[in-house]
């Protein structure tokens, strides 16, 4: 025997109410975690400020050009619910970039090129660089040591790690602050998803309640 329409509506309302309560509970838990992480981040920032100096960790240190490293994707999932996901761009440090480029260069040109070892000792570094440069730039006159060119790129590259704004050697506490805030950003996306879900469930519940009357 099937359920009557009233019973079906009641079951649906109960289900939605339970879902709503679950979502509210998850939201509260994530909020609590977010608050804790933010406080940790501030504490680490304060410790870094204590060791580096007041003005060294402030808005005065912000770069004049910034590129975001983290983006958020908002997409609709089942039942027209909205989901926020973060995606992070990985940054290669200049040394990694140099290592990667040299490893690629080592495979090919070493076997092809002719290297001169007759020159004086001060010029010994040049053949290595000439071989490396030839794969990127055929004219030897425009040769630049790869480490320097990559260093210039990273200086001009607005995608450089924000940690670099505060100096080359930063204390561990500043790195801890960065780590805390990165986790906060991930959690923010989850909380935004939950908030949207809570509001949607509320609307659906109220609609179902109206139709049942």
């Amino acid at each position, binding site marked *: 025997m099937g359920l009557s329409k009233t019973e079906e509506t009641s079951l649906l309302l109960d289900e939605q109410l339970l879902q709503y309560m679950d979502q509210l509970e998850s939201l509260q838990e994530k909020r609590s975690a977010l608050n804790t992480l933010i406080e940790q981040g501030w504490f680490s920032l304060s410790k870094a400020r204590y060791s580096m100096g007041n003005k060294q960790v402030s808005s005065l240190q912000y770069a004049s050009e910034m590129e975001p490293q983290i*983006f958020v*994707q908002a997409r609709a999932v089942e039942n027209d619910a909205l989901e926020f996901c973060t995606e992070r761009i990985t940054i290669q440090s200049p040394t990694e970039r140099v290592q990667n480029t040299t490893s690629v260069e080592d495979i090919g040109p070493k076997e092809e090129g002719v290297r001169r070892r007759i020159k004086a000792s001060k010029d010994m570094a040049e053949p290595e660089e000439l071989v490396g440069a030839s794969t990127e730039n055929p004219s030897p006159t425009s040769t630049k040591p790869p480490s320097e060119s990559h260093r210039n790129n990273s200086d001009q590259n607005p995608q450089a790690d*924000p940690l670099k704004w505060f100096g080359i050697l930063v204390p561990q506490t500043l790195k801890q602050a960065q780590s805390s805030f990165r986790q906060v950003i991930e959690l923010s996306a989850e909380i935004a998803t939950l908030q949207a879900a809570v509001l949607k469930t509320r609307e659906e519940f109220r609609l179902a309640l109206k139709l049942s009357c």
Partner: protein
Amino acid sequence: MAGRGKLIAVIGDEDTCTGFLLGGIGELNKNRKPNFLVVEKDTSITEIEETFKSFLVRNDIGIILINQFIAEMIRHAIDGHLESIPAVLEIPSKEHPYDASKDSILRRAKGMFSAEDFR
């Protein structure tokens, strides 16, 4: 540019903005306006409200993070924002802990039942 996702904007005090920019959300270049606002003691409510509204109008911002004490200053503007995107998240500040009873989203969600529902 089209496939890269949306930005996270932040309106907060110096420590909050510094922390989130350290996390890597900041965008600032010659062509576009920044996606953050550092609120200081002399920042006017008008400026905060205009910045918030400008973030709402931009189609490349997915989430707006705002300190709750700043959100209180422009509560009417936040309550008036009913769209899902950008999502507005109120966060605590160093001097003002998070208060769930003041959060716009939770206040809307709290009104699950009205007196008429029980008649």
